[in-house]
């Protein structure tokens, strides 16, 4: 049996975990390819015109997987371990996927306000006719692999942070940072201009004092706040926040992120990406930003 996983949006919240989990349960996993122009165009065509760009990309990936596999996995992520909510647009993803696609949707609600992650995972496995032993084994192996993967990334980032080069922090959601097509290869562009890009996502969040931030009920709100507080302990030359167009959560977040960096007198640039973003304009803005810092 083939299970399709779209490589966009919620996939990047736990990359490698889901495909590993299903592979350990002896399923064939089809991961949609990296985002390309065609996928984005497909997504824009089927999704609501006013939903955010990241959602449109996700639907493009779903459309690519449609009729290529037996099931497409679209979890309903509601709250995380700390009982903080995910973006409300994630709540409706399985239902929207059902409305758009012909392939069956495999879904499971992950609401840790109500039940633990492991328990929800067990329910998901039961839907696939697997027993408890197999499921917990698959979960353990996947988790172990994810841990090693994350540690490696954190170690690398720490090395970058302590180096002496010209450092620029990139602040965004993982689905904007790790998707090279969506963010127009911003990391490469910064590297080419002689600076060192650092992904905020790869930093380990420390339990820091969050007095300067409002109390977020969104998991990424708290996470980004904590990571920014952590990164401010190191010396940083500038910060760039990337938002996908029409992202409701970033409209709130940006106000406070900008305020925080202004308070530390660190130069801050805000970039909005969408399906019409031109490469030339993007490049010019980054160049101008780096030039102002270097002076």
């Amino acid at each position: 049996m083939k299970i399709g996983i779209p490589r966009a949006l919620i996939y990047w919240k736990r990359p490698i975990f889901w495909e590993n989990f299903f592979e350990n349960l002896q399923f064939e996993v089809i991961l949609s390819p990296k985002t390309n122009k065609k996928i984005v165009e497909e997504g824009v065509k089927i999704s609501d015109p006013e939903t955010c760009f990241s959602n449109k990309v996700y639907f493009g990936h779903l459309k690519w997987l449609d009729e290529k596999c037996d099931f497409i996995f679209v979890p309903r992520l509601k709250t995380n371990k700390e009982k903080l909510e995910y973006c409300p647009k994630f709540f409706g993803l399985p239902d929207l996927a059902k409305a758009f696609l012909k392939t069956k949707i495999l879904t499971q609600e992950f609401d840790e306000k109500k039940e633990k992650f492991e328990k929800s995972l067990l329910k998901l496995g039961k839907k696939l006719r697997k027993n408890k032993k197999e499921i917990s084994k698959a979960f353990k192996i996947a988790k172990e692999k994810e841990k090693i993967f994350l540690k490696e990334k954190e170690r690398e980032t720490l090395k970058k942070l302590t180096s002496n080069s010209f450092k620029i922090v990139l602040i965004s959601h993982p689905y904007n940072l790790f998707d090279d097509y969506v963010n127009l290869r911003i990391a490469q562009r910064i590297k080419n201009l002689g600076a060192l890009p650092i992904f905020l996502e790869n930093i380990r969040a420390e339990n820091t004092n969050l007095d300067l931030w409002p109390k977020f009920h969104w998991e990424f709100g708290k996470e980004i706040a904590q990571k920014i507080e952590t990164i401010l302990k190191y010396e940083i030359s500038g910060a760039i926040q990337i938002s996908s167009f029409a992202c409701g959560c970033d409209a709130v977040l940006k106000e406070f992120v900008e305020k925080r960096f202004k308070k530390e007198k660190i130069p801050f640039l805000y970039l909005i990406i969408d399906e019409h973003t031109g490469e030339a304009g993007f490049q010019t803005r980054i160049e101008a930003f780096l030039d102002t810092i270097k002076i």
Partner: protein
Amino acid sequence: MKITFPYWGNYTIAFEKLAKKLGLEVVPPEKTTPLTIEKGAKIAPEMYCFPLKVNLGNFLEAIEKGADTSVMATARGGSCRLRYYAIVEDKILKDEGKKVNFVIFDQSPLDIYSKLKKISGASFFQFLNSALFTLKTISIIEKLEKRAQFLRPREKEKGETDRFLNSAFRRLRKIEKFFDLLKFEREILKEMAQIKYERKEVPKVGIVGEIYTVTDHSINFEIERKLGNLGIEVHREMSLFYHLKKKIFPWIDWKIQRKIKNYLGSTVGGHGRDAIYEMLKYVKEDFDGVIQLLPAMCMPETTVRPILEKIHQETGIPFLSLSIDEQVAEAGLNTRIEAFVDVVKNYYGKKKN
């Protein structure tokens, strides 16, 4: 201390009454005009949803008139951006150099009570009294609006209902005592019954969507009046009372969830679920069209819109979605409404034959 609050359609009268009854000095917000929206949109974050821009415009106008404290209720249970309205507004107004304090309520009776008590110093009895007065006022406003929706397409003399409604609200604003309010309700309903109308069947259209855009006629370009004058009877489930009822009795939400489970398996924040529930209800009651109103980029409503469109495709009921923001022009909106009304009348005619 002079308090102010955002303008919210005809409900503004009720909130003004609440503040006055509690002995607070209040600067009532001016009616929202395109200029208000322009002022608000100028300083608001570009990607924030539309109601925040309107609220900021209202606050700016009230501050010019001498208000120094803004009162704003934000949702506690909701998942959408409404939670951060007050914090963001506070930050933006301070960045603009305005001297203004914010009193922020959660939408829970206890929190509202304790915070209002702190700023007004009113006694418990006074609270009970003013809460009762406010709720009664809201109920009268909703009764009048509901009756007007029925009368508009049928009235013999065009525009009489709206003229009557305007004078009724003007009179309601002057009432001070609870006893007078009860008397006013009796009188006004009697007077309204005297408006002459033809007894005939007309096409019916249901309005669903985000509560603020649906109920505030100053930002939705009086869509109910427009539809009424074009010969359509408008129905609207969403109202402040409906919202309050849902806050007090959570099982209403569970019931709604059960009814829509084939379309949506969970809440999406705000009133997303209600839109689907209401649309299904209108389909069941054999309505001739559904209009969804939403502020542009509203997170819950844009999430449910593809599902509403799916219902529209399955059942064939005419459906129009209007997203409203500072760039919407009235002329363009009129054209769309008129075209939609033609579709509705066609559908109605076909059904009759």
